[in-house]
């Protein structure tokens, strides 16, 4: 039937075409919207994840540094405590030495022992200096006993070393000292301090490990001993 269309048919066709055009548009619009929603979700997730990672890293660092400062604080506490303990021991040690120094003054009062002591230190002095002539400096109050002691010391010196010594006693040391003697060689070049005070001082230094052990017990932290 290829006759030309009448008015109704034309209208019908037009409407169909219009509807078609609209339909196409709607579908295209829907596609665009769906795609837009997808992209929205992806983009948002990407942005959020990115920032979240950065934030996490930041807080991780903060946490770490907080932990470290806590450890440092703890270590400082322990250190302070140890220092307090050492300080206390040192105080006691000084107290001990002071007591010893005071009691040192009593030694010269026991005459018998003191003379024997003087003899001993004078012989020791002779044997160290090994010179033919020696000047012995004693306390003013000790001059007489020193003379006796030096004499018998000289003969014992001859016994031990086969050598002679000529000595002279001078009371040049102060009576405030605890006792003992100083020996000076004939030429005045060699001095040997064998006074009670000096001997005690040397002992204070050298006996420290022993003193520590006697006073406070052995050190549990030590691993090596000579």
């Amino acid at each position, binding site marked *: 039937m290829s006759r030309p269309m009448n008015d109704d048919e034309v209208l019908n066709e037009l409407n169909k075409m219009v509807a078609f*055009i609209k339909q196409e548009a709607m579908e295209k619009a829907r596609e*665009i919207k769906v795609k837009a929603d997808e992209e929205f979700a992806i983009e*948002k997730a990407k942005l959020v994840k990115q920032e979240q990672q950065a934030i996490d890293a930041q807080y991780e660092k903060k946490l770490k540094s907080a932990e470290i400062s*806590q450890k440092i604080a703890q270590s400082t506490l322990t250190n302070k*405590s140890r220092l307090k*303990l050492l300080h206390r021991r040192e105080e006691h040690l000084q107290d001990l030495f002071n007591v010893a120094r005071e009691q040192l003054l009593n030694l010269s009062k026991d005459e018998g022992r003191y003379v024997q002591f003087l003899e001993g230190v004078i012989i020791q002095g002779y*044997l160290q200096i090994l010179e033919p002539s020696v000047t012995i400096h004693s306390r003013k109050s000790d001059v007489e006993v020193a003379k006796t002691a030096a004499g018998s010391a000289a003969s014992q010196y001859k016994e031990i070393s*086969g050598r002679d010594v000529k000595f002279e006693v001078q009371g040049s040391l102060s009576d405030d000292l605890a006792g003992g003697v100083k020996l000076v060689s004939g030429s005045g070049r060699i001095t040997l301090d064998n006074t009670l005070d000096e001997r005690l001082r040397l002992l204070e230094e050298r006996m420290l490990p022993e003193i520590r052990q006697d*006073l406070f017990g052995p050190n549990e932290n030590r691993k090596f001993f000579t």
Partner: protein
Amino acid sequence: MSAQQSQGIQTLLEAEKEAAKIVQQARQYRVQKLKDAHSEASKEIEEYKKAKEAEFKAFEASHAGTTSEAQAAVDKDTEVKLKSITDQYNKNKEAVVQKLLDRVVLVKPELHRNLKKAQS
């Protein structure tokens, strides 16, 4: 006949215009959605950050507590040790002083080991 034709074409042209409008709206929707992605992401990120900050602050608060506890514990321990040091000292003091004094007067005169007794 030609009036009818141009009317038909007019209708179609208008339909096309409508269609274009619809598609354009969809495109605008897309653009808006992209902007929304940014702003919504920012919001979520802010919230996350706040949550993390709160978490961290809680940790700090608990830590401050443990520090002062630790201090007190260490101090107490130190006091005990200090006392024990003094007690030990007082117990052993006399003996050590005596040892020192005894050793001060202890003399052992000896000839140097490299020397021999001189024959006269």
